[in-house]
């Protein structure tokens, strides 16, 4: 698989060097342990928000560090959870005395590493709350499995919690916003192609030219069902139905509709997806009050899309509209 890299072992290091050069007004990049932190951190009296995960999902999470969103992001190796020492140092770097929120995606490694980091931070006297996002309806939730994966809702949680912290809300109040997103957001994704982890060099799974994978995760892990490719509208129906039936969305509910690109799918196709997703939501009596369309939580060069729908109340809409200034998301400023 062709890649625009120098050395598979130095992909994350060199990416971070690029970010440091590109956005010195927004962030500082700390190496060994690696984390990206707001240029003006720590902010006294403000709740700090950190997230992290494997690399390969850019702009998430590093691209969301800045005013109105994350205070720090911990990038792991490609598709590999970061380590507790990174998370601990990032937590300390953003701690302004009001506590720190860890936004964690539900993957076994991420959860275990963040748990260890939270224990270490608490031992150093920093108040930490953790919320684990698990919004992927493609995975059956059960007491006997690792549970649903954390995907698209994470981006929305980072935006809303970032705005809440910027307003000066308490750690508990910011964590409550995150828990609302966890409870009210649902996602499902699909892939047209696989992707290749740089140090592996070959696609994570094989997907024939005329087939697609429904229920794909963001790490190239195969989904739950493989089938012949279909027109976009039918694919969108296959993604929207499980989302809408998973939470009891009521007629008249207001939602944010987020159509995400997996990294290799152009915007022209994402708008085709949005068009049908909007139509289906409206047919179910849901009011799409805000949207986000583009590659925000990607899976390297994978072609495909994921759809996230988040039910919102008035407060959440206000938080969504609040100013944000990050490399990956910027408005109102």
């Amino acid at each position, binding site marked *: 698989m062709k890649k625009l890299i120098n050395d598979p072992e130095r992909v994350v290091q060199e990416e971070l060097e690029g970010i440091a050069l590109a956005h010195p007004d927004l962030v500082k990049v700390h190496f060994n*342990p690696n984390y990206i932190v707001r240029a003006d951190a720590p902010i006294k009296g403000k709740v700090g928000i950190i997230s992290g995960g*494997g690399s390969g999902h850019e702009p998430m999470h590093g691209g969301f560090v800045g005013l109105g969103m994350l205070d720090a992001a911990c990038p*792991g*190796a*490609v*598709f*590999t*959870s*970061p*380590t*507790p*020492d990174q998370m601990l140092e990032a937590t300390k770097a953003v701690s302004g005395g009001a506590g720190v929120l860890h936004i964690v995606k539900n*993957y*076994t*490694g991420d959860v*275990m*590493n963040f748990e*260890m980091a939270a224990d270490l931070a608490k031992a150093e006297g920093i108040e930490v709350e953790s919320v684990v996002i698990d919004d992927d309806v*493609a*995975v*059956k939730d059960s007491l*006997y*499995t*690792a549970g649903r*994966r954390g995907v698209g809702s994470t981006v929305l949680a980072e935006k809303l919690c970032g705005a809440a912290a910027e307003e000066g809300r308490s750690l508990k109040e910011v964590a409550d916003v995150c828990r609302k997103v966890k409870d009210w957001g649902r996602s499902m994704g699909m892939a047209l192609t696989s992707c290749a*982890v740089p*140090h*592996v060099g070959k696609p*994570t*799974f094989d997907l024939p030219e005329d087939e697609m994978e429904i229920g794909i*995760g963001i*790490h*190239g*892990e*195969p989904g*739950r069902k493989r089938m012949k490719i279909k027109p976009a509208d039918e694919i969108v129906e296959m993604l929207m139905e499980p989302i809408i039936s998973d939470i009891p969305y009521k007629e008249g509910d207001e939602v944010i509709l987020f159509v995400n690109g997996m990294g290799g799918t152009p915007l022209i196709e994402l708008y085709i997806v949005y068009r049908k997703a909007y139509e289906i939501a409206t047919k179910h009596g849901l009011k799409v009050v805000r949207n986000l369309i583009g590659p925000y939580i990607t899976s390297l060069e994978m072609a495909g899309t994921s759809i996230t729908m988040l039910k919102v109340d008035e407060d959440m809409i206000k938080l969504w509209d609040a100013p944000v200034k990050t490399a990956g998301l910027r408005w109102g400023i």
Partner: protein
Amino acid sequence: MSISRDAILEWIKAYAAVIEENKTYLTDLDAAIGDADHGANMHRGFKAVLGKMSELADKDIGTILKTVGMTLLSTVGGAGGPLYATFFLQAGMKTAGKMELTPEDWYTALEAAVNGVKMRGKAELEDKTMIDALVPALNALNESIHDGASMTEALQRCAQAAKEGMEATIPLVARKGRASYLGERSAGHQDPGATSSYLLLKTAAEVLGKA
């Protein structure tokens, strides 16, 4: 027969070499049901461990194992990082200050290590994880010691049980870790974590069991 401090150092070095040799194999197993990084992650971790070896040459077994654990914690990542880190940290706590281990000491250390992994990963037998290799191995070691087996034989029976446990993960449907997202489709593949755990105990039998 007992296990010397030097033998423990040799075991760690030998395992780092085994991981290097099996890096692609472990990653391929992971690609089938996970996210294709187990071999690379373990390799990165044990390469860092090798870098610490010179400063450990005159330390006690507890310090050696704890240093291995802390090094893995900050270098491996993924789920394997905290799990293998916990394994070595727990074993290190039970062997603090010791310069050699009796078979009973070794059992106590391994028992704490396995219980630590269970606690951290919240996994049980037949979840298709490291636990499926580690728990039968621990039981076999216990039985061997009670049978009055030699250290060499006890370690061999321990490794053999880990091998059988690892192979028994093939038909299982995963209930923990990333493989659980696949549901029924995870059956038919050997668990990569159980495999690296078996290799650890196999290396122990080869290195520590040398009479």
